[in-house]
């Protein structure tokens, strides 16, 4: 099936999350993605949970299964001369190369920008690194918690009398992957127009900083340091908050004075809805406790989905703070087929989030399951590069494949 990105060939040397999410985005919209994995152990993401039936195994990671749809897998030992020769031949045929090794590793593997340019002057190389390719933290280690801390996400989050708390999920990795995918397409467009290849560098720390804006920019403007404000989004916006209800929590996201008024009317407090203090953003900050106190008795008699629907039909942004289970079972996402099922030899029918957007009025296209380790080695080496079956066997014996 021809799709938007079918003309783009991607050589994917990346592993774990950020790089593979970048190439997954390209692959799910049609790019031909060839994933190069280490022989025997493969991409480290194969060791990441959740596993099918909670049993680890190279072909049992649900996360790997999600991150690598629509890709082909070739195993190659990049430290071996013949492995390098094969990868340079693959680079010569590719439009985009994506890698997220530690800085300096590509050079050590003989895949420096110079060597890659020699192999293919039209190549776009996307590098995703923890802290980018330069600077004093270049070689520092990064976990999700470290990324959030140095990316400015953790400091303003949590209770003032407790340590700051990191956000849930691992979105630093996904945000970096998205920036990589955007960079890849921008650079391919540029290449198509000018013939000039390009390197595209993403720092996970910078990717996270670029997704914040209430702290350092605000400080640059007004010298304001935002302190932690508990379950409120921001001390200045107490109307953005999670509050308890009968069966869990709801998120109030009443960003505008009109929302507050409608909310107070809904919560059977027309007296406060008419009170001018609750009608301006600045005065509201001073009477936050009163606002929450006025809403709580009403909320405590109602379930979160009831509150969500009652508020939303009145145009008030409210969420039921769903658990992961409730997200998967939310009828709205079901009707939109936001999750798709993929048949996997070890996992059976595996339900994963589908592609992030689609053409209006068109059905979802089928996604191919993530490849088994080295599943396409022979097909690629013989079919694309013209090696014989004997060559392939020899490379297997030498530990190249």
């Amino acid at each position: 099936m021809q799709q938007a990105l079918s003309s783009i060939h991607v050589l994917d040397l990346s592993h774990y999350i950020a790089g593979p999410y970048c190439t997954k985005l390209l692959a799910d919209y049609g790019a031909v993605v060839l994933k190069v994995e280490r022989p025997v152990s493969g991409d480290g993401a194969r060791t990441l949970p959740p596993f099918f039936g909670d049993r680890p195994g190279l072909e049992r990671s649900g996360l790997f299964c999600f991150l690598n749809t629509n890709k082909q897998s070739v195993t190659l030992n990049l430290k071996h001369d013949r492995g390098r020769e094969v990868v340079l031949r693959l680079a010569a045929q590719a439009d985009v190369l994506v890698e997220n090794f530690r800085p300096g590793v590509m050079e050590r593997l003989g895949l420096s920008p110079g060597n890659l340019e020699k192999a293919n002057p039209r190549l776009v190389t996307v590098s995703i690194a923890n802290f980018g390719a330069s600077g004093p933290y270049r070689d520092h280690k990064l976990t999700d918690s470290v990324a959030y801390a140095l990316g400015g996400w953790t400091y303003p989050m949590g209770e003032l009398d407790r340590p700051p708390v990191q956000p849930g999920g691992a979105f630093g990795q996904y945000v970096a992957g998205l920036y990589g995918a955007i960079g890849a397409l921008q650079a391919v467009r540029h290449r198509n127009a000018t013939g000039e290849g390009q390197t595209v560098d993403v720092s996970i720390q910078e990717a996270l900083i670029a997704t914040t804006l209430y702290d350092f920019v605000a400080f640059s403007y007004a010298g304001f340091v935002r302190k932690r404000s508990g379950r409120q989004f921001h001390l200045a916006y107490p109307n953005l908050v999670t509050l308890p209800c009968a069966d869990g929590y709801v998120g109030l996201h009443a960003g505008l004075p009109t929302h507050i008024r409608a909310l107070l009317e809904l919560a059977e407090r027309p007296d406060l809805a008419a009170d001018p203090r609750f009608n301006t953003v600045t005065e509201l900050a001073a009477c936050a406790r009163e606002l929450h106190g006025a809403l709580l008795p009403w909320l405590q008699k109602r379930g979160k989905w009831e509150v969500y629907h009652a508020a939303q039909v009145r145009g008030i942004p409210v969420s039921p703070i769903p658990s992961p289970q409730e997200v998967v079972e939310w009828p709205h996402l079901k009707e939109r087929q936001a999750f798709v099922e993929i048949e996997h030899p070890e996992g059976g029918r595996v339900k994963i989030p589908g592609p992030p957007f689609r053409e209006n009025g068109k059905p979802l296209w089928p996604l191919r399951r993530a490849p088994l380790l080295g599943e396409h080695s022979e097909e690629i080496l013989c079919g694309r590069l013209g090696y014989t079956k004997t060559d392939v066997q020899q490379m297997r014996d030498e530990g190249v494949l």
Partner: protein
Amino acid sequence: MTKPLRVVDLTNGWAGPLSTCLLGDFGAEVIKVESPSHMDWWRGAELPGPPDGPKLYEQAPTFNTVNRNKYGIALELTHPRGRALFRELIRISDVLIANYPLRSLRKLGIDYQALSAVNPQLVMVTLPAFGNNGPDSEYVGFGCTTEAMAGITGVSGYEDGQPQMLSNAIGDPGTALNTCFAALVGLFEQERRGKGVSIDLSHVEGLLPMNAEALLDYTINGRVQGQRGNRHPTMAPHGCYPCKGDDEWVVIAVASDTQWEKFCQVLGNPAWAGNQKFATAAGRKTVEDELDRSIAAWTKEHEHYEVMELLQQAGIAAGAVLSGPEILSDAHLAAREFLLAIDKAEAGTHLYPGFVPRFHPSAGQVRLPAPCFGEHHDYVFGTLLGLPAEEIEILTKERIISTVPIFPTLTR
């Protein structure tokens, strides 16, 4: 690029404007459309002060961050002449990004069907919070709403506590990245099929991958994850520890037993660490509170950057928890020249996030600061659409375009 892309930005707030800002950073000509009676609400939710006072709506750090590299116009789309001009603009543009549902645009006569008649090559991305169809598609949301609906808020907060709203919504910038990517995919699709495309982008669905681990744990194993706080399912120690300064913190993540040995060496092999129950990750997980108290006693003696460097030199992941001012002075970001100083009329010179990603050799550029309200009518209506100056004056008089926000109702 040979011929720059022209993008019409009919969005406000954070998600939409940041998506077009990304396109503008790398060379696209972006035209931001506000309305005389409805300025982008990110210029400030409060009403502007008296007409001769300071223009507060030009001084919002939020608005000014995500609208650089754009031309700005204020065009009344509820007026037939305003809509006609909008269609003329679409005729000469490549991409339209609108954070309204298609049904709202249809009422104005600027939905995809109407606009593709004017420009069959148009790539259009609409980004209503919940998508263009489905039972809850009429519902509304900010970033806090959409990230909650993707289940991210539900897994955020202290391990012993309640769901915690994120303090910087990922819902908005996450959607901005998805939208920018969608517009680029749309351009490739337009080239492939030789005609335009209309894309439906639901904020919520684009955010699901960012919560993949928790969602997959449910779909695969039926396990419902909750808040983890600063803890990790297998790593210990893994937490946020107090340092010497006021409200100063460091995060530490010890990933293996070998790293634990190195960690103890950095601390000078204190007696408490020699206890056998700390020797394995599984053992450390069972006494995490005790472990955290002992580590906190050590971190409290040092500054956060000092702890980070001591541990990083030993190969252990650690990071200072940076506040806003610390990001402005961080040595690594400074060495990489990440932040950009941009001067904007009425706001002065301030620091903003730099370019992500970095391209070599064709680097991003700041060609324009965020536009003042209705700043570029001469360029857009005069130079691009060829209207004579007198006509622009008439449009202004008739309030079809405006260089000051007009507030028809001064009540809320």
